[in-house]
């Protein structure tokens, strides 16, 4: 069987068209949905989900082709322009017209990384669509929601398939817009109460925060274009290495400064999009969007784009940039993981977990472990999507309660969700034979290789020590979440949470939406589900305050649920009609079929996502050999960047066999130790009953009170940046922005200071010049008036005066004249006689 004939061989004539179809389908779906979606049966959800199914199928097929090629040792890097003549020439710039090839053109670039990423995007998006059918059922703007996530998917597909930085950036921006629209989904829905207010702010925050990164990316992009005159990745890689070689010929061992600057700017894009410290602030608040959107953002799209960008631009980064990347990634990983241990909101735990895992990926790429970082991105996408959708399922089942303290015992009611969530949790915690273990271990391995291989830098040491700590925290908080949510017994209303049902007035509100970040958002909201038909949830009047749960150490399961009748409740997507007088009478219930199916698909992929790449699954199960995954074979430096460039890059991070072997053993023992340690601690604290856990956790938090408060306050980054969102349901109007002691406040003060300088120094100088000019003018005017006019007037006045004096003699009296004549004559005579 030859490569050409096999149905899994890549056929440029057909397959680029298929890829293009997969890419355009969501866009077509979007256009149809936006224009006629509301009038379609079921508001068109089947249309988009079907379209996404087609897209997912194509991406899986294409991915299989990439694996097939890798299995047969063939190179799998395809460019639609070069191979099939499929170009989109946008415009020509500078002197490249002579070559007949524009330097601003686009084509499909499909390589093993693109294949893997495309598959992830297609499959996860399909699952999210499927899940949304159940989750979003009956909510306002249902069809718009589907249209938006479809376009979101389209943007990510385009980003992955783009062969150049410019089009990557365009899709990157489309994704920014779609995340804004989706996070703000509830901002158009006043009936969603708490979420309405929160989403309105959160979507702006997400958009503006990522915008900071986008601007950096744009600057970096332009720096590279300015030097290389091209946006094509393949060209950029080649030219970057040539530029470095040229520079090092003159200055041995040094790297061009402009490449470092440009690389840092490109990394700035990743900081914004992939929620790295300190621009991570938007991601936790992105939970204001519907849960399927969170799954999209946290797994397949958006945050993955930043890591994907790093993978695409890796050869353009100088060692300095890579050190910065590694350091930032490690900081983010530890930082977010510690915060994750204090969160009480189910989705907040997952959000911080995502940030932490993104830190792992970024750190890995910074350490030269491009393969490890991208591998983790792929495996993480599956299990994190599964976790989010499971969380959505739990929240859906628990009547939109999100506070884990008000859950517990959900396992009994939602067995499938529990199984899926547990599998994904094990995967993310890093238990062997689950996908997360392989990828996370590979990252830690990479850090230790750097150290043991003799390339000891501050960043690599920091990563080698910091990443295992973050991994331990990950295992701890994920199992804390599992224990809090699923073990013991159901305990609604343990703490006052903004999600809890208000009493009164919501005759037909089925799902009360609410959210509670752990820093006390007052109030809550109700999310209208028009067609559900529920009675009012009498809840407010049963008074939680009276129970008094001041400290977590004591909060007992208030009233459990023994006293209220368990009326039967409709199973179909949550008709919670029987709330009785307590308000939480109804049990959690398993989610409807589409949601469960989506969960199962993702859980399967979450567990086995790493195994797709095990070259020899049986052999690879010996876990000292585990790191040799197929992913590493298929996605390597050579396959990513071409043999020539790949060899050079691989040589840079190569270590000798002894060091590599040692690093394997160290990394394996470290990652096993931290994972089991984290799980053990989680079990000790949270696994042995709710009341006991509250007692133990209370003691611990009391003993490290100061540290706990700082971590629980998320290190006050939001406060420092002035971007904290405080939702106050009691206020009707939005409070005016008050400058405070934060970065934004400080920049406002600085702006005021500059304004003061402008007014008092710059303006003063201008005014001074003006005044001097005016003074000169006045002097000139005075001279004119006094001297010139004075001379003119003086002559006149003198003449007048003289005339008036002389006129006195001109009396007209003859005798007087005669007198003058006589005296004149006498005077003359006297003069003649005397002299």
């Amino acid at each position, binding site marked *: 069987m030859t490569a050409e004939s096999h149905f899994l061989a890549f056929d440029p004539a057909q397959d680029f068209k298929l890829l293009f179809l997969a890419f355009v389908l969501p866009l077509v779906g979007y256009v149809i949905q936006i224009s006629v979606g509301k009038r379609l049966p079921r508001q068109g959800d089947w249309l988009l989900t079907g379209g996404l199914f087609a897209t997912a199928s194509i991406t899986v097929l294409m991915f299989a082709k990439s694996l097939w090629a890798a299995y047969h040792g063939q190179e799998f890097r395809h460019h639609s322009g070069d191979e099939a003549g499929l170009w989109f020439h946008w415009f020509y710039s500078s002197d490249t017209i002579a070559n007949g090839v524009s330097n601003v053109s686009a084509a499909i670039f499909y390589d093993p990384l693109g294949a893997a990423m495309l598959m992830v995007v297609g499959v996860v998006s399909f699952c999210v669509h499927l899940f949304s059918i159940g989750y979003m059922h009956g909510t306002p703007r249902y069809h718009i929601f589907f249209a938006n996530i479809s376009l979101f998917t389209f943007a990510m597909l385009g980003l992955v398939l783009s062969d150049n930085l410019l089009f990557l950036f365009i899709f990157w921006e489309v994704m920014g817009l779609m995340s804004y629209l989706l996070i703000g989904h509830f901002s158009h829905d006043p009936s969603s109460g708490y979420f309405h207010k929160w989403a309105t702010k959160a979507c702006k925050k997400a958009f503006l925060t990522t915008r900071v990164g986008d601007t950096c990316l744009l600057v970096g992009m332009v720096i590279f274009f300015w030097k290389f005159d091209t946006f094509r990745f393949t060209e950029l890689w080649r030219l970057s290495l040539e530029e470095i070689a040229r520079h090092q010929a003159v200055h041995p061992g040094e790297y061009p400064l402009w490449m470092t600057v440009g690389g840092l700017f490109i990394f700035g894009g990743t900081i914004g999009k992939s929620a790295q410290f300190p621009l991570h602030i938007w991601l936790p608040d992105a939970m204001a969007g519907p849960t399927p959107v969170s799954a999209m953002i946290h797994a397949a799209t958006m945050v993955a784009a930043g890591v994907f960008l790093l993978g695409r631009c890796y050869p353009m980064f100088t060692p300095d940039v890579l050190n910065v990347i590694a350091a930032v990634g490690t900081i983010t990983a530890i930082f977010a993981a510690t915060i994750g241990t204090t969160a009480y909101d189910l989705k907040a735990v997952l959000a911080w977990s995502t940030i932490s895992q993104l830190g792992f990926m970024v750190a890995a790429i910074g350490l030269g472990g491009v393969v490890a970082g991208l591998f983790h991105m792929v495996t993480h996408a599956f299990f994190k999507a599964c976790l989010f959708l499971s969380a959505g399922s739990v929240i859906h089942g628990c009547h939109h309660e999100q506070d884990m303290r008000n859950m517990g015992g959900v396992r009994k009611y939602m067995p499938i969700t529990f199984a899926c969530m547990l599998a994904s949790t094990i995967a993310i915690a890093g238990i062997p034979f689950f996908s997360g273990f392989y990828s996370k271990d590979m990252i830690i391995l990479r850090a230790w290789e750097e150290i043991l291989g003799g390339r000891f830098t501050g960043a690599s040491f920091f990563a080698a020590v910091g990443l295992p700590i973050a991994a331990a925290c990950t295992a701890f908080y994920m199992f804390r979440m599992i224990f809090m949510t699923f073990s013991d017994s159901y305990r609604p209303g343990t703490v006052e949470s903004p999600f809890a049902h208000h009493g009164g007035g919501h005759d037909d509100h089925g799902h009360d939406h609410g959210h509670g970040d752990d820093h006390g958002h007052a109030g809550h909201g109700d999310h209208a589900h028009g067609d559900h038909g529920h009675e009012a949830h009498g809840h407010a009047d049963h008074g939680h305050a009276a129970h008094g749960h001041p400290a977590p150490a004591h909060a007992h399961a208030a009233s459990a649920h023994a006293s209220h009748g368990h009326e039967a409740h409709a199973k179909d997507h949550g008709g919670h009609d029987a709330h009785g007088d307590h308000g939480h009478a109804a049990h959690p219930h398993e989610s409807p079929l589409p949601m469960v199916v989506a969960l199962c698909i993702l859980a399967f992929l979450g567990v086995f996502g790493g195994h797709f790449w095990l070259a020899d699954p049986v052999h690879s199960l010996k876990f000292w050999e585990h790191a040799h995954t197929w992913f590493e074979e298929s996605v390597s430096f050579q396959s990513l960047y071409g043999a020539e460039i790949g060899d050079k890059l691989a040589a840079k991070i190569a270590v000798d066999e002894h060091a590599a072997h040692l690093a394997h053993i160290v990394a394996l023992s470290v990652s096993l130790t931290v994972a089991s340690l984290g799980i053990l601690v989680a079990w000790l604290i949270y696994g042995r009953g709710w009341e006991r856990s509250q007692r133990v956790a209370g003691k611990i938090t009391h003993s490290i009170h100061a540290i706990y408060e700082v971590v629980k306050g998320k290190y006050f980054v939001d406060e420092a940046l002035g971007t904290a969102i405080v939702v106050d349901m009691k206020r009707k109007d939005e409070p005016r922005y008050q400058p405070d002691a934060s970065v934004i406040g400080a920049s406002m003060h600085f702006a005021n200071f500059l304004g003061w300088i402008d007014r008092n120094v710059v303006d003063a100088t201008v005014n001074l010049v003006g005044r001097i000019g005016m003074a000169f003018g006045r002097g000139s005017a005075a001279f004119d008036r006094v001297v010139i006019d004075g001379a003119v007037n003086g002559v006149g006045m003198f003449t007048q005066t003289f005339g008036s004096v002389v006129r006195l003699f*001109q*009396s*007209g*009296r*003859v*005798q007087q*004249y*005669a*007198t003058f004549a*006589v005296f004149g004559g006498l005077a003359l005579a006297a003069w003649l006689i005397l002299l």
Partner: protein
Amino acid sequence: MGLGAYIAVSAALFALGIVAILVRRNVLYVLMGIEMILNAANINFVAFNRFNQAAGATSSLDGRMFAIFVIILAAAEAAVALAIVLNVFHLFNSVKPAEADLLRE
């Protein structure tokens, strides 16, 4: 009695004439002053003619002739002046020179 006495009379007459011209308010007295000045000049003519004869020469009548011309002139002058005074009187209804100050214009 020498030349000095004549000159003294003449000078006195001249001075009186001047004073009359300058200070008298009536124009007729002014005219009389003019006459007095002319006559002072006549005295001089005549006196110098009498005392200034060259020795042995026939006596000259030059001075006396000038005196007669002056008398004639004075008569003509008086006629013209009186005519002017008459017109002035018609114009200003006064014969006081201080009031006839049209020359000022």
